[in-house]
């Protein structure tokens, strides 16, 4: 009887040791149920789906953002904005957002309301505070720079699952973690990119790095997402985003702060009437 107990204990210890060894070498570090490497399209889509699923249910959020623009000579200029975001319960449509400028002072109060869609162009309204005018604007300029930064409008908008097609390329180490490298191709019109390479870590399935390839399929920009913080024990948000443009030598850093979830925002806070009072 004692021999059996010892045998079972030894078996369990051996199993535990093996599992620990395997986990640290990364071989078992990915999520369960992923399609294997022999089906890169299905694997890529599954990885993107996990990333998408992990961000469901955040409801509504508020955050402040500071943008530091650096030109090729190293000179910087800053912008400060604050955001309100509302998750759309409809999975076939995009989320709503309202962003408002705080600095520089000459554009303070300028605000942008966006009802984003998946493949169609977003509905956008711009608020001009000096004459209190709400203007419906064209959102087809996805590839254009967001307020003179290295982030294009499409880099900024919500990364809905249905906007891209995915192909898994490989798994490799990324810093202290392991990452899936997935290639994604925009399915919407007017994109400035032929494809993007996304590094998604195998533990939390968050984006760690994105390489953007322009219309000539040359590497144009690289985005690194750092300083991830966990909110409400469920939602990861990167507090620091660094975009470097390899062609121009310019860079833009986004620093997010003061994230608050479930603050009680509703659709009524995302109307053209609420543009003037965005805070």
């Amino acid at each position, binding site marked *: 009887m004692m021999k059996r107990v010892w045998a079972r204990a030894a078996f369990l210890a051996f199993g535990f040791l093996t599992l620990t060894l395997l986990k640290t070498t990364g071989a078992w570090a990915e999520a369960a149920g992923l399609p294997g490497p022999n089906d890169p399209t299905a694997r890529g889509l599954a990885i993107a789906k996990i990333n998408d699923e992990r961000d469901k249910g955040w409801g509504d959020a508020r955050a402040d953002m500071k943008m530091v*623009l650096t030109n090729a000579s190293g000179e910087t200029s800053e912008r400060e904005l604050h955001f309100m975001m509302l998750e759309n319960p409809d999975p076939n449509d995009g989320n709503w957002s309202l962003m408002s400028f705080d600095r520089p*002072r000459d554009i303070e109060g300028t605000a942008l309301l966006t009802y984003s869609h998946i493949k169609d162009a977003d509905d956008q309204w711009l608020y001009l505070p000096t004459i209190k005018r709400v203007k419906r604007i064209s959102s087809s300029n996805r590839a254009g720079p967001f307020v003179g930064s290295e982030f294009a409008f499409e880099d900024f908008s919500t990364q809905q699952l249905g906007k891209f097609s995915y192909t898994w390329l490989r798994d490799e180490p990324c810093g202290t973690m392991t990452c899936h490298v997935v290639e994604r191709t925009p399915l919407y019109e007017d994109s400035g990119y032929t494809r993007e390479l996304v590094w998604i870590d195998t533990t939390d399935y968050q984006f760690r790095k994105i390489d953007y390839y322009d219309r000539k399929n040359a590497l144009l920009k690289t985005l690194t997402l750092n300083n991830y913080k966990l909110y409400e024990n469920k939602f990861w948000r990167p507090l620091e985003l660094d975009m470097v443009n390899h062609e121009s030598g310019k860079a833009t850093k986004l620093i997010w702060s003061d994230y608050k979830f479930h603050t009680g925002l509703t659709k009524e806070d995302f109307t053209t009437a609420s543009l003037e009072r965005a805070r």
Partner: protein
Amino acid sequence: MKTSPFPSTRTAFLAVLAAMTLPVGAQADDFGLRGSITPEIRVFSQSPSSPRQTNSDLSIAGELTAKYFFGPHENQSIVVTPFGRLDQRDSRRTHWDLREARYSLVDGAWELRVGIDKVFWGVTEAVHLVDIINQVDAIEDPVKQEVRLGQPMVRLRTTQDFGTFEVFLLPYFRERTFPGADGRPALDIPVDTSLTRYESSRGKHHVDAAARYSNSFGDFDVGLSYFQGTGRDPILQPALSKDGDLVLAPFYPQIKQASFDAQATKGAWLYKAEGYWRSELGRQYEAVTGGIEYTFYGIANTESDLGVVAEYALDSRGMVARAPYENDGFLALRWTANDAASTSLLVGVDIDANTGARGFRLKADRRLSDNYHLSIEGYAFGDVPQTDPVYSIADDDYLQIRVARYF
């Protein structure tokens, strides 16, 4: 002679002071104070029509905005925005105004605002036909007429599934501002506001009312509005001043006006139209304007955009002094650098199809540093016959440079 826009200047100052003392004890988050000081220089290229006018003018303007938020979920706010300008040449252009002095309450889909406020209606760029609620501050912005005087009002708005519906009660009338005898640009016959008359026996205290419905349907944004009360657009009638000089005396009739504004947003193309039907002094007339706006994004492999605006304006009154845009075409190009300094340049031309008169516009903007903004505007006229309403200001081509300092 300074124009005082309120029954009591003292009341206005007290309102501003009260607003400034409110935040005592409030947290910094709930109270915001912003302002700007903007010196301006205007240079005129042609000889003036009157010996009292000169070829240059210096002025300085200041604007302050105090905002205070309070209540559950900060659903209430008080905003006060006084504005003032000191002008070197034109004592009438030295004026001040309360652009905003309002209380606002938000409750779910409803918003109530009481006090002095500003409302913008419209979709077109060249002429704003339906923007009626606030009176034009014509001394500040004679051509575009986008700068407005504060309007006292009670305003109730609700956003529902069927659209946004808003009603206005406008209990006090603001007269249009006009340049003085030393001012430029100016009409050749000066306007004497001491001779102002109203169709209504209640004068400035006639209570006007307005309502508006607006909604978005996919790519379309539409608005329907109605206004009833003292018309903001004065009829200028020749009269004799106290001293026996020939002047223009403003007369404000009662009007009923129904208007629409609509925009279709299709990719980089914007299609716009707005217009009104107005009933005034037993007559009916209409005006409409519309056009397109198209933007070329990332021109010549750069980050900058080039926008094209082409609009047309018609007025059923035809060639009368009060209708400067009775049959006019507008074309404007707007270049946006999309750089860190938000540099932009706009050039525009307005051609009167009836008289052949041409008006040229230029506007350049650039942020000089975090707190300084440069703005250059230029206006010129060409081939203006005497029959055209803008004839008397056609000799007042000018260049205006402003540097705004924000704090």
